[in-house]
């Protein structure tokens, strides 16, 4: 088992390095010289050369990448162009706000999607199944940012029971989950965010459960006289690895989708910061946020892989 874990972790390292290469090259995708944003407009050729040297832009690209990687590994992501603050502070501050949202949205999404999918899978072809399958198609096709806007129209504009946007008058520093006056700002964004993966999780769970239900061992269990409840328990257990794999992927979509949802609700998280950075053409912040979010995704996938092998010995042995 330990060898397997070590093997998986070793496999994740090249992926993580590849991701960092992509993030590094984002700066070079930007139109124009990456220096343009730092340089004063009346810079002389001499000054340009000097600054190029100071920032290491005159070295070959692989060297630049290694230098950059060294800085990143020590937590130095450069400074934001619009606020002049270190990117690392900006990103970690915003991430903690995103974390508040996702820590509610993810359990909600997983529980809803799993329950719907398991119910549909246990009764294939019945009314429950049709309802869930229909709801899943709607969920997959729904532009979630639009769902957010519709929720705002209904609950904030028309009914006026919940706040439309933001994190409350006190901002993020004194945000407390225990006070309703603060916590009410969470309701709409959490619901919207949770809707992103529900459809796909329900679909996959349904397919996995229905597939296991068709296997021979289920007939054996029934023949042995097990109660239907105990049979279902076996089926759910056996479908767990497949469901878990999809949940890991969906975790990433939820993090990525938070860019749009946080923009809709002007929630001061990493996604909202990313969309601000795009408008201000603040490439260091863009780069840092993307790197952080994608590394979280790589790490989650690794954890999911390990969890899968932990609950399913078949994966370990193959």
């Amino acid at each position, binding site marked *: 088992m330990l060898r397997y874990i070590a093997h998986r972790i070793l496999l994740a390292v090249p992926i993580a390095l590849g*991701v960092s290469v992509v993030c590094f090259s*984002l700066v070079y995708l930007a139109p124009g010289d990456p220096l343009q944003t730092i340089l004063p407009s009346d810079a002389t050729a001499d000054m340009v050369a000097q600054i190029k040297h100071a920032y290491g832009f005159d070295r070959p690209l692989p060297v630049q990448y290694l230098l950059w990687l060294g800085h990143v590994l020590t937590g130095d992501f450069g400074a934001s162009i619009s606020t002049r603050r270190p990117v690392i502070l900006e990103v970690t501050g915003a991430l903690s706000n995103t974390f508040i949202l996702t820590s509610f949205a993810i359990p909600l999404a997983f529980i809803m999607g799993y329950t719907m999918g398991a119910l549909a899978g246990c009764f294939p072809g019945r009314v429950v199944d049709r309802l869930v399958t229909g709801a899943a198609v709607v969920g997959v*096709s729904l532009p979630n940012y639009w769902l957010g806007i519709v929720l705002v129209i209904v609950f904030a504009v028309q009914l006026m029971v919940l706040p439309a946007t933001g994190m409350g008058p006190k901002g993020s520093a004194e945000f407390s989950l225990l006070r309703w006056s603060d916590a009410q700002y969470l309701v709409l964004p959490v619901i919207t965010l949770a809707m992103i993966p529900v459809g796909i999780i329900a679909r996959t769970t349904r397919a996995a459960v229905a597939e296991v239900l068709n296997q021979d061992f289920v007939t054996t269990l029934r023949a042995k006289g097990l109660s239907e409840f105990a049979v279902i328990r076996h089926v759910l257990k056996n479908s767990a690895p497949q469901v878990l794999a999809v949940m890991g992927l969906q975790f990433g979509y939820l993090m*990525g989708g938070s*860019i749009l949802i946080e923009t809709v609700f002007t929630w001061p998280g990493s996604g909202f910061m990313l*969309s601000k950075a795009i408008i201000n053409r603040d490439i260091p912040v*863009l780069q840092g946020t993307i790197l952080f979010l994608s590394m979280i*995704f790589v790490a989650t996938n690794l954890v999911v892989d390990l969890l899968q092998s932990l609950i399913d010995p078949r994966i370990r042995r193959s």
Partner: protein
Amino acid sequence: MSQTATLPIAFDDDAPPALRVRGYWSTVGYRLRHDPVTLCFGAIVLLIVLIAIFAPLLAPFDPYKESVILRLKPFGYRGHPLGTDELGRDLLSRLIYGGRSSLLMGLIPVCIATALGGTLGVIGGFAGRRVNAVIMRTMDVFYAFPSVLLAVAISGAMGGGMANGMAALALVFIPAMCRVAETATAQVRSLDFIEAARATGAGTFTIVRYHVLGNVLGPVFIYASSLVSVSILLASGLSFLGLGVKPPTPDWGLMLSTLRQSIYIVPLSCALPGAAIFVTSICFNLVSDGIRAAMDVRL
């Protein structure tokens, strides 16, 4: 979907007792013709495409004509059936024209990704070993990004615009497309008929062209059809963030983002562009499900 056909051949209900055997494509056609859900949503997709193509004939007003006195008017105001937007432009006309960019950004990235990703996948799957490893491990890296994040990162760095948005979306889809093509190619590569073709002296190109592609195009096409609605959703998401279509071009995602500022004045018109995205995406999704079921050889 249809549980009636259990073999790759299907039978007419009113066929004479001597059974008529169909070829693959006529089976697919038969299944599609007898699938009311797919037919119905396919018709809606066709309607949406036709509306976008004939927008100049259908739109009651010029979608670019602004008017200071007609800003943010409600439904039915002075001949504007859906009212006007924040610059006094007719909302219905803009919705009709908006389908053009949304459909383009839904279809073009998928076509590019199918061509490039599919080719890479076939090369990787057929060449095997080192070539395969280089291609697939590179794809793994792009796979390690959540799709929205990758699309936003690339088009954000490149600075928005419709062409950049499409390039970003194509890049998001290439790895997945490549995997589908690679899996399908690797499955047939070691089969006997390929070996037989090689024994008769067929070159690599001939084998790929006549023996591999036929087995790969099906799964690739099915996957590509399912990507269209994803592409439409992601594209309008990019436009919503200001990264896709640039103003004043009418686009559903962009309209959603600008009308949102007036959510307290005209809440209903604010929801309309999103409803258009939703309807288009769900129709493409259901049609793709229907195609998948019809083309499934296992049924």
